[in-house]
């Protein structure tokens, strides 16, 4: 699972300004949510293909979060297909209502979630932690008027993103260790499967907080106090490529809203 891990490659997407990447992501998310026609979906798939191609990231890395959640997508699809209330059901019994609208709704929900996950993954895979922190800090600047310490907030959010793959890795290790001690996580009953995760929670929290403690000690030992006192070089101006990317995403967003 590569969510949150930066993969350094020399690509157009990697070279884009991180602030512009976040703004573009927001425009594309609005476009995805607004999509309701087949042409709209086709356009979104084309845009996604171009982004992945331009990013030069391996398809395996980009699609890894989706592979992990395939069961979730199947469940979501069938829940929509069988429980979506429709005026013209193909088959209806008790609370179950199987309809064409339900199938379409299921496909729409699964598609939207997949696209959002891929876009979020491309952003984190193609943006270095430092760039992400600076971008968040820059985009959150208006909150300074409300006396919000935006530099600290940006630093916390960035560290949180970096923590995700680490915690996922540790969770897997803890799960394997518990399995070796005789715990069962592969129950076919979904309720039992959910409840089997509970004994993992305390070890996951302890190991995550231990990691956090080590990191905070290392930061304090190096003289870090808070992000506000940090200095940085002069702001990086936007380039033609950055503005073009945001403009393209904005146009896609507008087209999707009005299609």
């Amino acid at each position, binding site marked *: 699972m590569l969510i949150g891990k930066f993969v350094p490659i020399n690509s157009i997407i990697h070279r884009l300004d991180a602030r512009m990447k976040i703004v573009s992501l927001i425009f594309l998310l609005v476009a995805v949510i607004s999509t309701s026609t087949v042409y709209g979906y086709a356009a979104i798939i084309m845009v996604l293909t171009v982004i992945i191609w331009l990013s030069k990231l391996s398809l395996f890395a980009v699609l890894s979060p989706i592979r992990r959640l395939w069961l979730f997508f199947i469940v979501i699809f069938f829940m929509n297909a069988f429980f979506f209330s429709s005026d013209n059901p193909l088959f209806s019994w008790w609370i179950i209502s199987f309809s064409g609208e339900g199938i379409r709704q299921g496909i729409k929900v699964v598609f939207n979630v997949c696209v959002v996950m891929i876009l979020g993954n491309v*952003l984190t895979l193609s943006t270095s932690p430092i760039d992400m922190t600076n971008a968040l800090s820059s985009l959150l600047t208006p909150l300074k008027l409300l006396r919000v310490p935006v530099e600290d907030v940006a630093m916390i959010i960035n560290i949180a993103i970096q923590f995700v793959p680490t915690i996922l890795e540790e969770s897997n290790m803890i799960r394997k260790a518990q399995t070796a001690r005789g715990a069962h996580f592969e129950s076919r009953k979904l309720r039992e499967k959910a409840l089997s995760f509970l004994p993992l929670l*305390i070890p996951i929290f302890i190991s*995550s907080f231990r990691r956090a*403690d080590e990191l905070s000690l290392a930061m304090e030992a190096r003289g870090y106090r808070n992000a506000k006192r940090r200095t940085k070089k002069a702001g990086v101006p936007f380039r033609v490529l950055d503005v073009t990317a945001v403009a393209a995403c904005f146009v896609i967003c507008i087209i999707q809203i009005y299609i």
Partner: protein
Amino acid sequence: MEKMSYVKCSIFTAACIALCIVLPMAFHAVPMAGPRFLPMHIPVLLCGLICGWPFGLLTGLAGPLLSSLLTGMPPQAFLPSMMVELGFYGLLTGLMMQFVRTKKVYLDLYISLVTAMVIGRILAGISRALIFSAGEYSMAVWTTSFFVTALPGIIIQIILLPSIVFALEAARLIPRRYPKGLNDK
């Protein structure tokens, strides 16, 4: 009481936000596991309990936002109401832990937790009724979604959260709320 440094609180908050993304992923394979087991609530409440209200509030706002951006869950339609709800939980647990001091850690934890969970649900219900689902929200929907469906999650939180706080204290990752006196040895 020894206080945690600002840097340590910040990094613990980052860990809690990361857990807001990781924990729901484990429950995604189970239908209706989110509204039933409330996996994202646990790190938010925990952050409020151990780091204080500003950090709890940040976890409540940033946790669902980042989770939605990286994993698509919660869906964007539910994101604002969920951010408000979790923001209230983080804020209220932190505030309650600041003001409630009974000299007994368990009592402090339970009073803060239960009060934050009840007031948070009331405020989240009001915000849904007035802003997010104005005109379509009813008392029955509020009771069902916040108490009936979420009952397993509420029980898990009440049992698990004080245990996690004690486990963290025992592992010396957070300072004791009431340090043991010489007479206690």
